[in-house]
């Protein structure tokens, strides 16, 4: 039931937001997002005291109701460790994302905030669904608000960029639908339920087909090369809040789904195809990092750095050992926090200088020391300095990858070196040195801007210094997924 409350609150708020006009809408949206965050945090204390062992246990988080009788689809939502982590990530980032729009002039803001809250509803739905088709519905539903956010509030290239994004992701998800229907008929109990799907073994001749149908869908969403071409343009032309939603939460749908829906359901095929999948991920890390070094556009640089980071997360998942899975989950949380901080900084810079060109900027530190400090902390988090949140995740991921194969770990480890290269060089050009334009006065951050950046910086250190609760949270389910690997 608690899950249902968490899920429905954004939906109801999204409808109510439409009734407001002017600035009331954004305050209401913020109120809704914060109350959902509070419920989530309170739920944590219920969560750690609830006995989640035994898949059939009826606990306060499970809500299972028959929805469609034939073919049988249940409205089955529940939470385990990874679901809770993703729900927490979503609800943690939403207030920050909403707050980051407070200083901007947004046309028809009631529709804008309504779409953001609707997006929150769909994303939460993806993370708590335990029925395949229900999960699929939320997966597609998440596409609609982000499409309209980008189409209505994006920059001048928005029309062609968003249609590419939409068709790309929809193509992947339709293949996944095909995979689910196949699973339904292969499965002797004829069910889409996750518990049923993980229990029975699909014939190994059928597993390959299902693997590829699912893999393409997730590879597009994550994105893993060569399915990434929609991503840099979309990040560039979407409004900042849209980019934050996309990079902070939506691409986690892909990595989350790898753990939830791919590994435990078709283990044999995963083992068979892992070398190729990991190779793609690691190649993506190197490729995206090299491109990021060459970028002069700040938003594009961040987009490519994001490809590199999630490539490592996906590689860690495919390594399929407890360190890899745990590391990927920690890193999903860390990357979500860091990347929205980075995009917010880029947005602040663009708003004051009307430029995204790294070579045309400089000397921000001279007039805006506070901003420069926050920016540096977020960058350090993103290049995984010890004591920041990025470190523990990347360490575990590389450890997991090393267990799988030494050479892959070496290439994967390049992400740390190359990441430091492009991030620090970018910081040097943007924030240090002398201002290229002597008349430009870069105003320092204050008010809501500072609240957002400060919160992000606190979170970066908090999760970096105390990773233990998060690790304990995800351990049982990571163990469950890893056991599947040993059983294969």
């Amino acid at each position, binding site marked *: 039931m608690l899950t249902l409350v968490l899920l429905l609150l954004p939906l109801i708020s999204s409808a109510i937001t439409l009734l407001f006009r002017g600035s009331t809408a954004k305050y209401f949206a913020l109120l809704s997002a914060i109350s959902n965050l509070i419920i989530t945090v309170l739920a944590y204390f219920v969560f750690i005291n609830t006995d989640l062992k035994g898949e059939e246990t009826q606990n306060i988080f499970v809500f299972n109701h028959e929805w*469609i009788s034939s*073919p049988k689809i249940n409205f089955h939502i529940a939470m385990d460790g990874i679901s809770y982590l993703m729900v927490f990530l979503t609800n943690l980032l939403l207030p920050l994302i909403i707050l980051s729009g407070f200083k901007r002039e947004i046309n028809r803001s009631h529709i804008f905030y309504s779409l953001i809250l609707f997006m929150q509803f769909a994303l939460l739905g993806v993370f708590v669904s335990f029925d395949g088709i229900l999960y699929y*519905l939320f997966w597609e539903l998440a596409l609609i608000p982000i499409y309209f956010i980008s*189409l*209505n509030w994006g920059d001048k290239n928005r029309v062609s960029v968003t*249609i590419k994004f939409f068709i790309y992701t929809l193509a992947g998800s339709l293949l996944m*639908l095909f995979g689910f229907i196949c699973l339904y008929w292969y499965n002797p109990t004829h069910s889409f339920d996750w518990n049923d799907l993980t229990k029975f073994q699909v014939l190994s001749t059928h597993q390959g087909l299902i693997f590829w149908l699912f893999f393409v869908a997730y590879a597009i969403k994550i994105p893993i090369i060569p399915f990434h071409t929609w991503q840099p343009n979309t990040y560039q032309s979407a409004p900042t809040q849209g980019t934050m939603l996309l990079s902070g939460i939506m691409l986690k749908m892909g990595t989350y789904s790898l753990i939830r829906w791919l590994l435990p359901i078709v283990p044999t095929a995963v083992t068979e195809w892992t070398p190729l999948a990991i190779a793609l991920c690691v190649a993506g890390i190197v490729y995206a990092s090299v491109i990021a070094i060459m970028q002069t556009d700040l938003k594009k640089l961040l987009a490519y750095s994001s490809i590199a980071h999630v490539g490592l997360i996906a590689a860690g998942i495919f390594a399929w050992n407890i360190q890899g899975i745990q590391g990927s989950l920690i890193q999903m949380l860390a990357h979500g926090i860091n990347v929205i901080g980075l995009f917010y900084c880029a947005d602040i810079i663009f708003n004051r200088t009307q430029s995204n060109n790294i070579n045309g900027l400089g000397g921000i530190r001279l007039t805006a020391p506070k901003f420069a400090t926050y920016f540096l902390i977020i960058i350090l988090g993103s290049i995984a300095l010890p004591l920041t949140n990025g470190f523990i995740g990347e360490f575990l991921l590389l450890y997991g990858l090393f267990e799988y194969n030494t050479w892959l770990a070496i290439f994967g480890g390049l992400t740390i070196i190359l990441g430091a290269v492009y991030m620090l060089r970018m910081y040097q050009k943007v924030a240090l040195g002398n201002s290229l334009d002597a008349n430009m006065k870069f105003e320092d951050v204050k008010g809501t801007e500072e609240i957002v950046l400060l919160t992000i910086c606190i979170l970066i250190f908090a999760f970096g210094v105390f990773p233990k609760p998060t690790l304990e949270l995800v351990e049982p389910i990571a163990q469950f997924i890893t056991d599947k690997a040993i059983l294969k």
Partner: protein
Amino acid sequence: MNTLIYTACLGLFCMLAEIFNLRKWIIPTVVLGLAVIFSLNLNDWNHPSSHYNDMLRVDNFSVAFSGLALLICTFLFMLSSDFYRSEENQKHISDYMAILVFVLCGALMMVSFGNLVMLFLGIETLSISLYVMAGSNRNDLRSNEAGFKYFLLGAFTSGFLLFGIALIYGASNSFNLQDIYTYVSSNGNNISPLFIVGMLLMIFAMLFKISAAPFHFWAPDVYEGSPALVTAFMSTLVKIAAFAAFYRLISNCFLFTLQKAELILTVSCIATLFIGNLTALVQDNFKRLLAFSGISHAGYMLLAIISLQSNTDSVLFYYATGYALSSIAAFAVVIAVIGITNSEKINSLNGLGKKNPILATLLTMAMLSLAGIPPFAGFFGKYFIFSEALRNGYSYLVLIAIINSIIGVYYYLKPVMAMYGGAANQDEIKLPISYSLVLWTCVILSLLLGIFPDLFVTLL
């Protein structure tokens, strides 16, 4: 049976209204009458009966599809009052309305026939009325072309249909569905070749009526040339009636001999999907785009017919309902926009998202439903069809259908992109109240169907 008789009476009323100078009352009466007949129709639910020596057979299938046809017509007649408001049209209003009601009569016969002769009568009643209506815009060259083209090709197809019926009669000595079924099931492997040829000819004729490739060439020109309201009738009512008749024919007569025609149906299904979707990609005329979208939807419904199983009828019914609701919503906008801007181009919608956001949202929802995106009825329609087809082992056909769904998204989003992305033009677009009503009802019904599909799927 009562449904059919009452509807015919409504048609006669329209003709008589001219004499008694009741023109103003025609459309309200028809809309009200159809709503009453719709509720009377529900009385036949779970009361199967047969009439006129088994010419008409009322069962749950026919009641469901009659209800759908009546609902579609109620919506479309609500749109017609504004569509025919010009003085020139008002002169002929009773003719137009009467003929359109007779289209519905034909459709009702087609969904409840128990005898091949009745099928032919239904198809002819429907088609002849449509030939007239397609050319009803007398001063427009393209409307004349549409009527003429439709008539020539349609008449030719009627010949095929009749020839097929004659051959089947020759083989089985009966026009009655029950007798033909008995003949097929009792003769096993010994079925006369005449019967097979007859079946193929009838299938060709039906493929023409549902505008499946390669018999689809008439559809885009006729849809584009006809007045927009008539196009809406063709692509919703007529297509669904034809599909219901096709399904009834196959499930009652040809079930055992279908594998002889399976290759033909499969090829036609694949061709329909690809031709419909690929050609729609390059259209910039909204009406023509909807015509090709109708062709591609015929492809999906053909997939349901190929994978014919015990509960395919409810799947087909669900799909048809979802398709009809979203198409009517799209047509309501098209008709309104054509009336105001005098342009059928998609770019006449430019900037609608800013000028009339509610209308834009509703049209967007209709397009998303047609594209098969959840949570609208269009998604579950496709999902059920894919699921049934996969269960019966047609995985390659489902894969082709999925590829086509991906292609389809592009052109269904074209109007959406125009509304939100294009630069605004000057014309103010405001909908008459009846249009808003139809639009809202259709979109809300489509959403409800998408959220509670169980209400419908367990119906038949």
